[in-house]
């Protein structure tokens, strides 16, 4: 198991380097003078020249990448002119908020998704199974920002049950935080919840006709145990892979959800950066979220191996 983990850890290094190349290239495709975009139109010619030298804009591309990577390793992602702060500082101060939302959403999506998928798989073709597939279709056809708006409209403005934006109430209490989290968490989770439910259902149906399920039944094992102890664990590797991939959608979906709910995370900062074309902040945000996604998938791979005893030997 340890060598498996080490092996996987070595495999993600080239991927992370690739991710830094890709984010570096984002600045390269900016049309016109990068200094204009990177500094905003108000900067003086002097600061522009300074930046050009600092970034090595007159140097060949690979030297520029070297400079980017060196700065990156020192934690320097450039300066955000929207926030008038180093990008690293903007991102670090908001990473917790984004993680909080993403983790809450993946927990909600996983628990409800796996439960709903299992529940539907118990009676394929039944009313509840068809009902689930309709819900899945709707959740997978709804832009999250629209769902967020509708939820705000219903629960925030009409029923006045829940706050419609921000993260804390005036007191800063935990209950206030929880209340503020309800709508954004559900909005962010909806898409993934549907995908997880659908995949759990089909993964269970794939294994429910297996011989070993029949063996367990032939020995008098109860239907509930058949599903929970025999079918679900064998469906788990597939389900875990799907959940891992959904983490990516949740991290990127955070941009939209945070925007709709004014949730002070990386996504909201990136949205604010779009309108001012604050490229360093966008670049940094993408880099942080992509690396987070790679690391999450690393953990998912290990969990996958844990749930699949045949891999442990390899």
């Amino acid at each position, binding site marked *: 198991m340890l060598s498996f983990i080490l092996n996987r850890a070595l495999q993600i290094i080239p991927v992370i380097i690739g991710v830094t190349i890709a984010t570096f290239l984002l600045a390269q*495709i900016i049309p016109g003078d990068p200094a204009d975009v990177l500094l905003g139109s108000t900067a003086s010619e002097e600061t522009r020249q300074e930046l050009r030298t600092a970034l090595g804009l007159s140097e060949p591309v690979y030297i520029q990448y070297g400079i980017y990577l060196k700065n990156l390793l020192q934690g320097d992602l450039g300066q955000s002119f929207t926030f008038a702060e180093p990008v690293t500082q903007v991102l670090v101060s908001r990473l917790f908020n984004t993680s909080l939302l993403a983790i809450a959403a993946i927990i909600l999506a996983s628990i409800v998704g796996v439960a709903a998928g299992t529940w539907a798989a118990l009676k394929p073709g039944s009313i509840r199974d068809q009902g689930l597939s309709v819900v899945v279709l709707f959740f997978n056809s709804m832009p999250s920002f629209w769902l967020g708006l509708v939820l705000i409209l219903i629960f925030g403005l009409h029923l006045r049950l829940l706050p419609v934006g921000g993260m804390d109430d005036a007191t800063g209490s935990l209950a206030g935080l929880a209340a503020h989290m309800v709508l954004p968490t559900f909005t962010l989770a909806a898409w993934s919840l549907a995908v997880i439910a659908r995949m759990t259902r089909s993964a269970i149906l794939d294994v429910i006709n297996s011989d070993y399920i029949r063996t367990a039944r032939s020995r008098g094992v109860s239907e509930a145990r058949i599903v929970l102890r025999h079918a679900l664990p064998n469906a788990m590797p597939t389900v875990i892979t799907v959940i891992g991939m959904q983490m990516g959608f949740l991290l990127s979906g955070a941009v939209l959800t945070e925007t709709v709910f004014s949730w002070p995370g990386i996504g909201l900062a990136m949205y604010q950066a779009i309108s001012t074309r604050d490229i360093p902040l966008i670049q940094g945000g993408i880099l942080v979220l992509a690396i987070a996604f790679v690391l999450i998938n690393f953990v998912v791979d290990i969990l996958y191996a844990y749930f699949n005893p045949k891999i442990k030997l390899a």
Partner: protein
Amino acid sequence: MATMTQSIPAASEQKESVLRRVLSNGSLVIGLIIVAIIIFAAVFAHWIAPFDPLHVDPLARYQRPFSGWHILGTDEIGRDILSRLIYGARFALLVAILPTLIALVIGGAIGLLAGYAGGIGDTVIMRVFDIMFAFPGILLALGISAALGPGLTSMIIAMVVVTIPAFGRIVRGVVLGIKEELYVEAARTLGYSHARIALRHILPNVLGPAVVYGTLQTGRNVILSASLSFLGLGPQPPTPEWGQMLASGRTAIATAAHVATIPGLAIVLLAIGFNLIGDGARDMMDPRFTKERS
């Protein structure tokens, strides 16, 4: 031998059964109807839109749906929402279908070449795809779109770039599977050129899965493009584009909710249409492809 002859019915019989299978596939039929209606609206927008989608009427701001001449009400500067929706269908279809087609052609060609040629080139391309898959969802599209500067063209480029790897992988997978099959071996021993084998023998087999995935991707592109527009990266105002209409209506959500929610409904409807077609087409295809990444 017996199974071989059974699995290849006569051509006319096959054609008839395909039609019957399409009609008996409820979700496919509903999906096709929804998309056909939206295509109709887009094509004949000029004739069926009751108002000029760009006509500003400061005296008729935020009119409620079904309250007057404006069936679906008006927006923050008094433009007719129904007319904007009808014209917006053009952009919605364009940014859903065009990036899919371009990505299908480019990604498919890359996958075909990589899978057929194999070797170092294949390894490098797959590594690049792996790295692109490391970017979650719309993030990369957001970055490319933002770097190139907001607008329709950069949005389409961004969508194409982020969807190429999925097409490439699917096509490559299929190619690897059938490359070694007997009939390709046979063709090779007959001395056919590589181009001929790739085009005549492999391409037809790749088309099915690529088209099914393409339909599903079109449904996702509806959402992806609306999302980019919502973030301000799509066509700029006053262009009637659904995601952008929703974004600008958002400020008045408390007082005139319809300005934002109605364009959202249009997005949902189009996405449902393409998703139903994709699900239906997938069910009709080899069940193997139902397990492709979602």
